[in-house]
């Protein structure tokens, strides 16, 4: 049962991930990315971390992608719909890409360490998935400093985004609809 679910989710995630890259209209890519994130959240549940799955939906789908769509809707996407992206100039990057993908897959399929690792430590299936309280204890005891640093980074990003998106006071030609963020 679990394998079937994984395969389904993985196939949909891969397909929507590809759609993100090949869709002409940015709003279609954004929606494909939303679908992909939802699949990944479901995979997180399979991985025994429902908290991360919910956070994934909350932050990625509910906030980040909504911001993306907000920006896309404020911009003109008509021009992009006409441009081609597989230009001759993209050939070197395509080669690099194929090399990268091939290398990763090769290493994954051929690596002895991965095989031995799998053989060495079979995961304990009888253990119940970790509770959120354990997670939070770990986060707020051992990882308190990184947590605080992350929150400061978020604050800085908040202030930075507001300053960046603010229209110049002298420049009245543009409406300032971005403060809503």
């Amino acid at each position, binding site marked *: 049962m679990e394998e079937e679910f994984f395969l389904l989710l993985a196939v949909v995630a891969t397909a929507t991930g590809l759609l993100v*890259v090949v869709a002409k209209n940015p709003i279609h*890519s954004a929606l494909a*990315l939303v679908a992909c994130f939802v699949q990944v959240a479901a995979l997180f549940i399979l991985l025994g971390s429902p908290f991360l799955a919910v956070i994934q939906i909350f932050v990625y789908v509910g906030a*980040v992608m909504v911001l993306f769509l907000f920006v896309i809707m404020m911009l003109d996407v008509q021009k992009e719909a006409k441009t081609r992206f597989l230009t001759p100039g993209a050939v070197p990057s395509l080669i690099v890409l194929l090399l990268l993908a091939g290398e990763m*897959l090769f290493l994954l399929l051929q690596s002895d360490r991965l095989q031995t690792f*799998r053989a060495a430590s079979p995961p304990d299936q009888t253990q119940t998935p970790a509770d959120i309280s354990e997670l939070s204890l770990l986060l707020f005891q051992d990882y308190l400093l990184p947590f605080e640093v992350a*929150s400061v980074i978020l604050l800085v990003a908040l202030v930075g985004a507001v300053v960046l*998106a603010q229209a110049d006071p002298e420049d009245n030609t543009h409406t300032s609809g971005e403060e809503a963020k």
Partner: protein
Amino acid sequence: MIPLSWYLILGAILFATGAAGVLLRRNVLIVLMSLELMLNSVNINLLAFGHQMQDLRGQIMAIFIIAITAAEVAVALGILVALLRNKHTLEVDDLTIMKG
């Protein structure tokens, strides 16, 4: 029980897809979205290893990645809006003023 390598292969595929988006697309928005995809594939890897080893630190790392991603997206979209206001373009090829 799903083998660990399945998750790793899925992560690799998503990472390669995201890299393709970053390298091949010229639209800043889609480049940003592809970056999100790559970060997500990293999260899958972290959680898969954490699950395999019954170690919560994988989840902790994933939480940090998600938090930092949110910050990154806010700043990036702010830059993007400012960019559009000043340069009126979203093509990465047109944004070359930093070139020496």
